[in-house]
């Protein structure tokens, strides 16, 4: 390999203060910014969720006009998906991928910072849209036509926000794929990579494949709104269902984009605290790849009620159920990893085991919803809301928490407060179930989603859900406190605080040096 030698490491001309963050090309700085941005969006989206649950605390119209309630649900979804969950995982990728494959940084360090700095303008477009004439879009986070064709200016802002976030995701993914394929340390073959790296490789592929399709969908929406095309208008030979097809061709891989890195994190944490290597490593890799490939041929299970030939319904039903096989492989592998392990339950492990329970439940409700005749009953009820919060909050978000606690010692050089971490876990899992478990019953009883009022018989469960939601929201402030406390100080963390952890990042001192591996480590 050709080498460009310049050993005068002169860090003096690095900008300091705010400009350090604005101009940085360092994967750790950028990862940190991604994670803080994501947390800010989690609180913003969480605030909107509190608004939703406040209105639903009791039957009748209390606080909001119906159209503002729609704006709350829509923006809660958009902000959580594109602002909180996805950037959080990109933050993890930035911090961890170079360290785990023995690279000094990402392949395209400047573009890396560009991907991050595209997010604040997009977030600004979304948040400011609440204050323009007509308010934010209330078409639901899926932005279905024809409702989205009829909305006001807030809709255009959401469209451009999606464009910008899409550009950010595509650049970020190209960077991650290239880093993984081209920056691995000598000896780090693909099948030696930690599973977190594998899951991100496949996630990045999914992102590059489907974010442009979403861009296409919202572009058609834009031209239907302002340039009189008729993509989604039957009078002009179009079809509103076309929007749903294009959207869900993006949307279904998108849900795996939000869960595969979570699988990766859990696959790092469980072996570390079971003090056993991951059971069935290669089957985990193949399962991840299978899930990714299957995710492209199941999209219409979101659309069973729009009118579809029976053959189509059958195909999408069976294809969807097929995904349970590789997902099952993963769940069994995690359990087998713990089998006869010498387990301890520090906070990351608690969140991972919690993840295993609650995510698997979300997986099962997904299977139930995959059955076409059942789905026709449950479409757009709170059962669906319960299902996807089980996989997105208890799945993605809990894995994010697990990952944060797992790697905080490596990132900050301090141990976090274990007691408070455990309190955070127990409060989170109790309040989470309080909020969302009852939604299964509400959905089965027929309560529709995205409606600000409900019949009297739903009152008790809604009260429980709202109280749980407020508790869950407040609990996350405790998380903020634990993280800030850990950054400010605490017990000094050793290079490898977790006995069973074995990937490359633990060979670096804590906190990890500014450039992870200045010379490539040799992996045997």
């Amino acid at each position, binding site marked *: 390999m050709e080498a460009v030698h310049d*050993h005068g490491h002169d860090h003096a001309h690095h900008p300091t203060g705010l400009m350090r963050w604005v101009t940085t090309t360092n994967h750790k700085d950028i990862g940190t910014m991604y994670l803080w941005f994501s947390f800010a969006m989690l609180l913003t989206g969480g605030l909107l969720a509190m608004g939703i649950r406040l209105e639903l605390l009791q039957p009748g119209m209390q606080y909001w006009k119906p159209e503002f309630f729609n704006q709350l649900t829509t923006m809660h979804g958009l902000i959580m998906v594109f602002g909180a969950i996805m950037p959080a995982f990109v933050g993890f990728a930035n911090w961890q991928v170079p360290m785990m494959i023995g690279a000094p940084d990402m392949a395209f360090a400047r573009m890396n910072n560009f991907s991050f700095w595209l997010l604040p303008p997009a977030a600004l477009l979304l948040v400011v849209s609440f204050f323009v004439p007509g308010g934010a879009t209330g078409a639901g986070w899926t932005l279905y036509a024809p409702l989205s064709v009829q909305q006001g200016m807030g809709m255009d802002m959401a469209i451009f926000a999606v464009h910008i976030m899409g550009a950010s995701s595509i650049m970020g993914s190209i960077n991650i794929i290239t880093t993984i394929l081209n920056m691995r340390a000598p000896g780090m073959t693909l099948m030696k990579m930690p599973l977190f790296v594998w899951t991100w490789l496949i996630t990045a592929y999914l992102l590059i494949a489907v974010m442009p399709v979403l861009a*296409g*969908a919202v572009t058609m929406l834009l031209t239907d709104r302002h340039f009189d095309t008729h993509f989604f208008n039957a*009078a002009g030979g179009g079809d509103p269902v076309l929007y749903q097809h294009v959207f869900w061709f993006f949307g279904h891989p998108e849900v795996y984009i939000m869960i595969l890195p979570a699988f990766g994190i859990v696959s790092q944490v469980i072996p570390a605290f079971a003090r056993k290597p991951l059971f069935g490593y290669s089957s985990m890799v193949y399962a991840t790849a299978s899930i990714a490939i299957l995710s492209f041929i199941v999209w219409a299970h979101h659309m069973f009620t729009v009118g579809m030939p029976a053959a189509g319904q059958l195909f999408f039903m069976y294809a969807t159920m097929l995904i349970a096989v590789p997902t099952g492989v993963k769940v069994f592998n995690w359990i087998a990893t713990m089998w006869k392990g010498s387990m301890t339950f520090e906070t990351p492990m608690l969140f991972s085991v919690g993840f295993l329970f609650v995510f698997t439940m979300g997986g099962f409700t997904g299977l139930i919803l995959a059955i076409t005749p059942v789905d026709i009953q449950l479409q757009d009820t709170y059962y669906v809301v319960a299902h996807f919060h089980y996989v997105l909050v208890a799945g993605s978000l809990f894995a994010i928490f697990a990952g944060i606690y797992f790697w905080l010692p490596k990132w900050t050089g301090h141990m976090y407060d274990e007691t408070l971490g455990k309190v955070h876990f127990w409060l989170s899992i109790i309040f989470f179930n309080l909020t969302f478990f009852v939604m299964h019953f509400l959905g089965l009883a027929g309560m529709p989603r995205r409606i600000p009022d409900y019949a009297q018989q739903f009152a008790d469960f809604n009260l429980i859900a709202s109280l749980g939601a407020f508790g869950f929201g407040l609990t996350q402030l405790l998380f903020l406190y634990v993280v800030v406390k850990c950054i400010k100080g605490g017990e000094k963390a050793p290079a490898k605080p977790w006995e069973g952890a074995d990937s490359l990042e633990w060979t670096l001192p804590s906190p990890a040096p500014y*450039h992870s591996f*200045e010379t490539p480590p040799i992996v045997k």
Partner: protein
Amino acid sequence: MQQAHSSYYIPQPSTWPIIGATALLFLGFGAALTMNDLGAGPWLLLVGFAILVYLLFGWFGQVASESEKGTYNKQVDISFRWGMSWFIFSEVMFFAAFFGALFYMRILAVPDLAHGASGEFLWPGFAPKWPVSGPGIEETFTPMGAWGIPAINTLILLTSGATVTWAHWGLIKNNRSQLILGLILTIALGLVFLFLQGYEYYHAYHELNLTLTMGAYGATFFMLTGFHGFHVTMGTIMLIVILGRCIAGHFKPEHHFGFEGVSWYWHFVDVVWLLLFVLVYWL
């Protein structure tokens, strides 16, 4: 301008990302305001566009000069290759969305409107024979024929694919005049293509009454060919930049990814055109 860590290359802190983000901030708000006929929208768009142009010149200029100084080693070169390949894949998927819309409308949506209840009660007498606008559109149009300008344009783009490869051979053989002549020919063919497409659009709007608002056919025709034309425009600009760099003596026979990346892009645009010619114009 680099820190080298053994064989690794890491660029210095850079202000280009925040400049780019600012450009998109202006463009996003500017476009939203403009489309709703509000206030300073066009001005914001203009400012955003100006910053974007400044960014493209500045950032790519920096990359070009770093490359010429020999900053990029073999590993960086491979990274660029991966990066460009995945970028082109993302472009393929962008076009796939619009091709998907075309197939869906042509094969499912339009025939469905003439069958069953909607054909019987809503739009009796609607003949779903492609190319068609839609049952609610009274005006008629003439579809664009394949064997006039589009066929000539196919020939032009295919020829330009050959000339850019000929230029590449010139670069590899270190025959600079072949390189520069090949690029000039490619750019000229690209410009002729764009001119003919412009004429075709004029013809469509003024003589065929084929417009963007002409339902299923109008929307898919103009969105697909329009985005393709935009990509040809970008490709031509990129080729002009590469030509300028070649005249300035950039690139070596063994180290010229800037050239190759642009030629990959040009071939991609070429392939999309072939699909357009067959699926939009011809069949």
